[in-house]
């Protein structure tokens, strides 16, 4: 569904992504793990169009739109949409939704308005209220806080709001950036449970995490990022068992 083909991204003169290639297939949870500054957030922001890719290509597979399985999984085709040519708001409108690092809740907008911002590009009132119901089922806490300014929520509630807001666009693929950041262990568990639930409902997810252990436990596949390069990739179970990964990222 989503294919990155040797993507290079720069911050000024700093070469942040040095040719990242990865694939996310329909219905998968794929996780991107790595230490601070490895380029995980940069990867997501390049996909979302917040940062420009200076070389390489990012494809969203065309028939992933209809929800059916892609005709040629994992391989880019001429009919695929090139995301790397598009500004962020157009990428979002094509169904690539990001819950950004640090949650980035609109602090002065109410919870309700934050969720409405997630559905900004949509005009189908019925569908929006359906999705709102779905978000409330996943996060009942948000319903209790509807008229409260986003900035007054606790960290965990803000994370729920960030994920809920990203779901409100009814995306084809959900990019989650460090959903566990700064949360108490019990909340981390809860959030990961919900991510799994969202995936079970059919959502394709690219999950960026520093908490490699938790991420690999719910993911199908994983990529390990180190200073702008992918150094390792494979099935999540294999990565969990890999001694190299265990030493560097699992703290065992």
């Amino acid at each position: 569904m989503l294919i990155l083909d040797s993507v290079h991204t720069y911050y000024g003169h700093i070469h942040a992504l040095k040719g990242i290639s990865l694939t996310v297939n329909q219905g998968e949870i794929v996780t991107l793990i790595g230490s601070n500054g490895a380029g995980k957030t940069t990867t997501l922001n390049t996909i979302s169009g917040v940062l420009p890719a200076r070389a390489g290509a990012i494809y969203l597979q065309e028939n992933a739109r209809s929800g059916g399985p892609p005709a040629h999984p994992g391989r880019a085709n001429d009919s695929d949409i090139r995301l790397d040519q598009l500004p962020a708001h157009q990428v979002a409108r094509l169904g690539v939704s990001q819950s950004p690092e640090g949650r980035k809740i609109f602090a002065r907008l109410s919870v309700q308005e934050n969720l409405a911002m997630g559905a900004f590009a949509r005009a189908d009132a019925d569908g929006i209220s359906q999705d709102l119901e779905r978000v409330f089922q996943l996060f009942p806490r948000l319903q209790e806080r509807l008229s409260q300014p986003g900035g007054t929520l606790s960290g965990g509630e803000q994370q729920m709001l960030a994920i809920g807001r990203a779901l409100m666009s009814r995306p084809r693929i959900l990019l989650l950036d460090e959903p566990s950041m700064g949360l108490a262990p019990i909340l981390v568990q809860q959030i990961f449970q919900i991510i799994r639930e969202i995936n079970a409902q059919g959502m394709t997810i690219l999950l960026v995490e520093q908490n490699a252990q938790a991420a690999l436990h719910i993911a199908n596949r994983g990529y390990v990022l180190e200073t702008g390069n992918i150094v390792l990739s494979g099935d999540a179970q294999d990565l969990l068992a890999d001694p190299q990964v265990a030493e560097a990222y699992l703290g065992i």
Partner: protein
Amino acid sequence: MAPSRLTAQAAGVNGKTALRFLLRAFGAAILVLVIWRVTTVGLAEGYPASFWISQALNGLVLGGVYALVALGYTLVYGILFMINFAHGEVMMIGGIAGFFALQFSQSRGWLEGPWPVVVVALLLIMLFGMAASVLIGITLERLAYRPLRQAPRLVPLISAIGASLFLQYSVLLIFGVSPHSYRKPALISGGMRMGDVFIPYTGAIIFITSILLMLALYFIIQRTKLGRAMRAVAEDRATASLMGVDVNAVIVITFMLGSALAGAAGVMLGFHNTVVKFNSGFVPGLKAFTAAVLGGIGNIPGAMFGALILGLIEAIGPSALGIPTEYKDVIAFTLLVLILIFRPTGLFGEVLSEKKA
């Protein structure tokens, strides 16, 4: 090296404290002077209450016009963190355009017609002024500010001052130095008398129109999808774009809204002052900027109340202080200095977030 740098830093801190102390002492001196003048001169004159009331009403009229202009400053600042110093000129061009629309209406005899015709003609005149201002506002954004979006914050400010001068002297070149005079239609000349207080119709119309436009803006910002997107962009541009918001489009719309209000203000100020010329936007622009700072720049209700307060102070000030009316501009700018000394965030101001500071 380290110790000497430390002492230099300490000296810098001491210098800053000393400067702040001096400024505050200066501010306090002005305040004492004002209070002394008001008690010994203003109150001692013994003007009747009706005098103060009509001055205050006059102030509210002017304040309403300032508010419309101040909203333009505050809207743009809220989203781009820049002061659009050419905004006064955007207003002036609305006034000039309104003048030509007025002249056209007069030549067609619309303004001597039955009252519905006159009302529609006046509305069209205002809409024409607003349209001209919108055109100038979005052109400014596109040519003078957008190319500098990534530049340090001082750069667009300089560009804005350049644009302000460019617009003033372009109008001077095209329309000449002599003022264009607004002639009021008979329908809105004159006024009504309530007790000892005389209320001119133009003043009442200007005030009511300003309030209606402000309410309309407030509704757009607080209650519509567009307004929500504007508030989201003001808080966090990148995250808003992740929601599918076209940030550039929102910025253009912000300029359009601010310029439309300024255009309406320009036309109304034309009727109020009876003349408009190339530099009639400059001082009102600075006043409106003062009002926006008084209310807390970036804060929408702040701009509205700041402007009404400024209008009141300006109208009552000269008599209260016992100074000639020609010096009323001094009052506004002294107020600006006092706010910047004692409350830089304005009356309704919030603590500036790290990003804005």
